């Protein structure tokens, strides 16, 4: 059976929803970062799928995906660094406990 564009899009949407769910429900900062990774990868699947099925001659989709992977790496590095810093000063990485600036 030929795997079509729709299938890719459904997988990507499910993956995005899983990521969003993780971001919204998790209290652990590392888990939130992981959720964000899922959402980014869902976007990557979309880009690559559209490149393959809509404009196979172009490579713009592939390039975008590569850029996003790079960005995701950077984001993970900065995010984990922040988590490390937060842990060092506050001894927790539970986001609901980091509420120093709250009213």
């Amino acid at each position, binding site marked *: 059976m030929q795997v079509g564009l729709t299938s890719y899009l459904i997988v990507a949407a499910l993956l995005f929803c899983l990521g*969003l769910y993780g*971001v*919204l429900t998790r209290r652990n900062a590392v888990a*939130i970062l992981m959720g964000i990774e899922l959402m980014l990868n869902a976007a990557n699947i979309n880009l690559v799928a559209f490149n393959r099925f809509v404009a196979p001659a172009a490579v713009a989709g592939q390039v975008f995906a590569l850029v996003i992977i790079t960005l995701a790496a950077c984001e993970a590095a900065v995010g984990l660094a922040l988590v490390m810093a937060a842990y060092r000063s506050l001894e927790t990485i539970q*986001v*609901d406990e980091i*509420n120093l*600036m*709250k*009213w």
Partner: protein
Amino acid sequence: MLQVAWLIPLLPFIAFWVILFRGRRLPGEGAYVAIGALGLSGLLSLVILGQVMFGGRYQATMVWAMMGDRPLAVGYAVDPLTAVMLFVVTVVGSLIFIYSVGYMHADPRYPRFFAYLSLFAASMLLLVLANNFLVLYAGWELVGLCSYLLIGFWFERPAAARASMKAFVTTRVGDFFMFLGILLLFFTVGSLQFDAVFAAVQTGSLAGPLLTLAAVLIFGGAVGKSAQIPLHVWLPDAMEGPTPVSALIHAATMVAAGVYLVARTYALFFSSPDHLALTVVAYIGGLTALMAATIGIVQDDIKRVLAYSTISQLGYMMLGLGVLGYTAGVFHLMTHAFFKALLFLAAGSVIHAMNTNDIKEMGGLAKVMPVTYVTMLVGGLALAGVPPFAGFWSKDEILLEAYHHDRTLFYLGAAGAFVTAFYVFRMIFYTFTGSLRSHTAHPHESPQVMTVPLIVLAAFSGVIGLVGAPWPLVGNMFHRFVHFEAAEGAPFDLRFAALSTAIAGAGILAAAVVYRWQLVSSATLRRVLAPAYAVLVHKYWWDEFYAVSVVRPVVWVAQQLRTFDVYAIDGAVNAIGVVFVWLSRLYRVFDLYVVDGAVNLVGWLAKAAGGRLRHVQTGRAQNYLLVIALGVIVLAVIGLTR
């Protein structure tokens, strides 16, 4: 030198301020400054007198302010009358200043005394230099102020304080009339310059009853200042001041101002229809001359004798002016300044030695105080009118003019002359002859600083009259110098002079019979003439008359007004206060509950709304993110279903 005549009043005026501020730190505690300033003015006055004698005249005017379209000018003028007055005021004033150094010695307010004296001299000099009514009035009021300050100089004594107030208030009554007169002239003529006013009189634009009214009103001021009936009551009380002040007030400055005023504005008086204004002047003068002289007979206070004498002599001056004897009046003003200053200073010397004013406690002082005795004798002879002393020439001239003008006035004057000689020699006999009646006093001759001015004044009193004597070849020099064109004096009459000398001699003789040889005792006289004595000793009841007719009604009205003030006006003010206090209490309640309530409500509302709404801001990024995601889903659903 005529251009710098303004320096003459300015020098004592500067001295006044310097002494006022520097006081005891000055050489001689201010006395030398005062004497120096007035002495310089005196030298200037002498130079100016000389220049005026040789025809010098000067007048300077500048516009001070505009009243509508009428300019108010100030300025000064030098003419023979002014020059004579400058000479008299500065010379007599300087001698009195020098005398005061001795008399006021060790007084606690010594510098202030000289400051006041300087201001007094400055005011008088300003008055005589004025060439318009405005400056004259300013000087006039300053003189009044200074008299108040100096008469009340020993204000610790209630009598002195009362006397100064009496002098001030009484002269103010006269000043009020004078001010009305000046206003009348200003509104009819439109200028206060003497020249302009006299020109208006000359051309007839100011004439008739209006002119008479203006002249009489102006004369009102002179009546007050020169202590004529009925405003003479202040002068005897003014004796409460230090004796040099009495000399200054009664000889050279204050009282002379009134006579000077009439002489200065003589054109007004002269031109009034039928000489009506002059007749008023003459009769008031004549009555004053006789009445004051008679009161002088019964006074026991040496200064009060001289005070009544001053009133009487001022009456003679007015009489002289009133009977067209312009020169005679001014001449008597000048001679009187010298011999009355002499008499006062000699009396001061006696008081200084005796520590009492009562002549009945004195006696036999001639041996103890020879200089004072001789000088006072000269003054007495001059006052009595014995030739060749000063008073004779001027008084004789006045009587002569009166004789030719109006017999009634002549009889008044002649009777006054007899009484004058009588009272002054009564005083001299009481003081200097017989034996000392007081047992506590230790009289002594006064220091030189007091006797030298006496000697100088005595010399003046001896010879100053000669300038008005009818010399062969040159005639009456004073008359040629100071005269009023239309009022030429009567020629000297030898028989008349003999008559007036006889009157004076008779007065002296009568005094000697009673008080020197005591052929008739004064007690017998008092008994025989009891009704007349009662009248005299009560001074014709003038003070009592004023107490009943003026003082008591005024005090009564004042009390009524006080009652009105306390109950009606204060009550109204307090009522308004109470009403406003209640109103403001109401406003306070309104403020507290309505205005403050509204403000607080607004604040409370904002706070409550904020409290409710703050829960929206959780501070959790995940909540915001959830809202965003839901929002996206809602938007997507809306976008898809449309």
